[in-house]
């Protein structure tokens, strides 16, 4: 694998994760539990979409085959996507959406804080831009996890169910392969093992305040590094890609 191929794959991981999570949160548009939260989720979605846009634009340039950010978003199939399994999980109830976003925000916060130091100038600039937005998201979702977890019996049990369901998808976020080793050597990528303890302590701190318990069963589902996904991704892509695929020349 060449450095360029590794970088292309790395950018797809980051861009696809932001894109799919943006699409998931956008599903709440007009359906939020109340107006302010509807706005919050769609605002977060918009930030993520913007991040995905700049990363995939760069991915297209790195690949050098003339693919635009839209080509990459709308004209790849399920087995060509590298987003994390966590990002594609269904919205479920509001507790599950908020917890999914919180676990991703905590990861993004630790990850992009480090990526700012990347020797790749484009990635470093995108990270510096994104971290401001992510800090805001994390503050928002942390406060909701705490409020709902340490809330009523009903809200607590919904949060605990969400945690039991989603925890198994958090392990693979830190999985590294050849792509990482090539890019870490170049000073481009973040060593995921080094940010894992930071992520764990951030997450545990909030979950403790929220009186939520991390599941004892340590089984972790993996797959996204090999572009293998849960059953949800196909449905997301079918909806997200239907317009540009059925009307390929459609313009805004």
């Amino acid at each position, binding site marked *: 694998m060449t450095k360029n191929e590794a970088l292309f794959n790395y950018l797809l991981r980051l861009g696809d994760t932001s894109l799919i999570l943006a699409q998931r949160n956008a599903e709440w548009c007009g359906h939020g539990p109340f107006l*302010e939260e509807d706005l919050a989720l769609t605002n977060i979605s918009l930030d993520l979409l913007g991040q995905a846009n700049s990363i995939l634009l760069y991915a297209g340039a790195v690949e050098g085959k003339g693919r635009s950010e839209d080509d990459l978003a709308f004209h790849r199939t399920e087995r060509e996507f590298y987003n994390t399994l966590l990002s594609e999980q269904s919205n479920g109830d509001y507790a599950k959406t908020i917890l999914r976003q919180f676990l991703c925000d905590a990861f993004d916060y630790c990850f992009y804080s480090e990526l700012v130091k990347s020797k790749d100038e484009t990635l470093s600039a995108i990270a510096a*831009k994104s971290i401001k937005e992510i800090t805001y998201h994390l503050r928002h979702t942390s406060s909701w996890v705490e409020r709902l977890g340490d809330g009523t019996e009903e809200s607590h049990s919904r949060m605990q169910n969400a945690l039991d369901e989603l925890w198994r998808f958090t392990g693979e976020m830190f999985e590294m392969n050849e792509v990482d080793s090539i890019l870490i050597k170049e000073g481009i990528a973040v060593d995921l093992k080094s940010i894992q303890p930071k992520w764990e302590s951030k997450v545990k701190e909030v979950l403790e305040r929220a009186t939520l318990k991390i599941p004892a069963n340590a089984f972790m589902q993996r797959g996204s590094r090999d572009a293998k996904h849960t059953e949800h991704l196909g449905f997301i892509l079918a909806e997200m890609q239907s317009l540009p695929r059925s009307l390929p020349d459609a313009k805004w």
Partner: protein
Amino acid sequence: MVNKEKILAFLSEIPDPEIPVINIKDLGVLRDVVVNGNEVEVIITPTYSGCPAMKQIEDDIVSAMKKNGIENTKVKMAYHPAWTTDWLSDEAKEKLRKYGIAPPEKSTSDKGALAGKKKTCPHCSSENTEMVSQFGSTACKALYKCLDCKEPFDYFKCH
């Protein structure tokens, strides 16, 4: 021969599509103009990564250039240095306040300005206000309400 200063002057008249009282220069979105013979590169930076107004701003720039007889325009998006509300001039902040949007307070290094600190109501100047939501009508604003005049208002977040 096209002149950089002249181009910057007419581009500075383009209003922000969401907040038309301030222009794209005041907002800090318009960064630079580079003239290469007959080709002109206009460099802009987004406020927030996903700001939907950016496409509109790009279109507005291209049409302003055409109106001034410049056909060969490239609009380039730069991410570095990342946009910050510190670039807003005092004059721009005053325009925001008059428009009904509480301007960002001081600098982004003041983290209190992001979190709990009281904001001044742009309608009645009362400091008896509270945050309704961290997220407002656009990505760059948060939603507040005034407990004295009872009016809701947007706060332009420190970023």
